């Protein structure tokens, strides 16, 4: 399959996500988190956090709005019907808590063809309101050839 390597390096406008307490609880329940830091406000405060703590993988929630325009970009040219999520990496900085505003910027890191498959790699960098990098994600999508 032909891929458009010209999209490599392309950046998309940052999106900002306001982290809500009940959204953290909803995510924690759906992923069976049991640590009270994600569920019990008093426990989180006793542990020294300002509010409920987001589980590390909550990064998928605050990053998603920034990823969508990159994955949908016609210049990148992903064929959804043939796309699978191949691999994922996250590196975390300070924990995110309810009340944080996390801004995420996405870049196209790689577009290449190997063994008849297209590999599309995106990087997301998420920064909190204090300027700390809270998460860097590397998202690898694989598109099977026709």
């Amino acid at each position: 399959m032909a891929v458009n390597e010209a999209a490599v390096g392309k950046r998309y406008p940052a999106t900002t996500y306001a982290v809500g307490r009940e959204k953290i609880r909803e995510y924690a329940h759906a992923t069976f988190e049991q640590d009270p830091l994600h569920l019990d406000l008093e426990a989180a405060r006793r542990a020294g956090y300002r509010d409920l703590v987001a589980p590390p993988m909550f990064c998928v929630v605050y990053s998603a709005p920034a990823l969508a325009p990159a994955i949908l970009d016609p210049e990148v040219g992903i064929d959804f019907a043939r796309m699978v999520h191949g691999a994922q990496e996250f590196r975390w900085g300070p924990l995110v808590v309810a009340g944080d505003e996390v801004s995420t910027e996405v870049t196209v890191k790689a577009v290449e063809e190997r063994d008849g498959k297209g590999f599309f790699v995106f990087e997301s960098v998420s920064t909190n309101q204090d300027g700390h990098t809270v998460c860097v994600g590397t998202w690898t999508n694989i598109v099977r050839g026709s």
Partner: protein
Amino acid sequence: MAELQPGAELPELAVTPDRHLTIRYAGASGDFNPIHVDEEFAKQVGLPGKILHGLWSMAQVARAQTQAGGGPHTLRRLSVQFRGMGLPEREVKVTGTVREVRDGLAVVDTVAEQDGTQIIRNAEAEIQI
């Protein structure tokens, strides 16, 4: 909290997602791809039925690490490969072994499997110790 020395095994995490889990996770994560929430659609595209979100399974791998490390702050990095597919109503098991300890981090080789098939493989975590 587990003793994270080279060769140590993480406490195994076993979880059985219920029938409606994928719908709750779709709402929580915002990923409403019909292969995860619509039984009929999933079958039409050749799947056995609604399949688990890969990122939900990755969250179970993450949870095994934070439980072993002693809290969400201990997980510094997690990289995974998604393979095959997970299904609701069947047990998912996460296991892991500490490969090495360097710079105050335990490097863990970890996988998630269901019915003996790895649904997350070649995963590597770094846990602060």
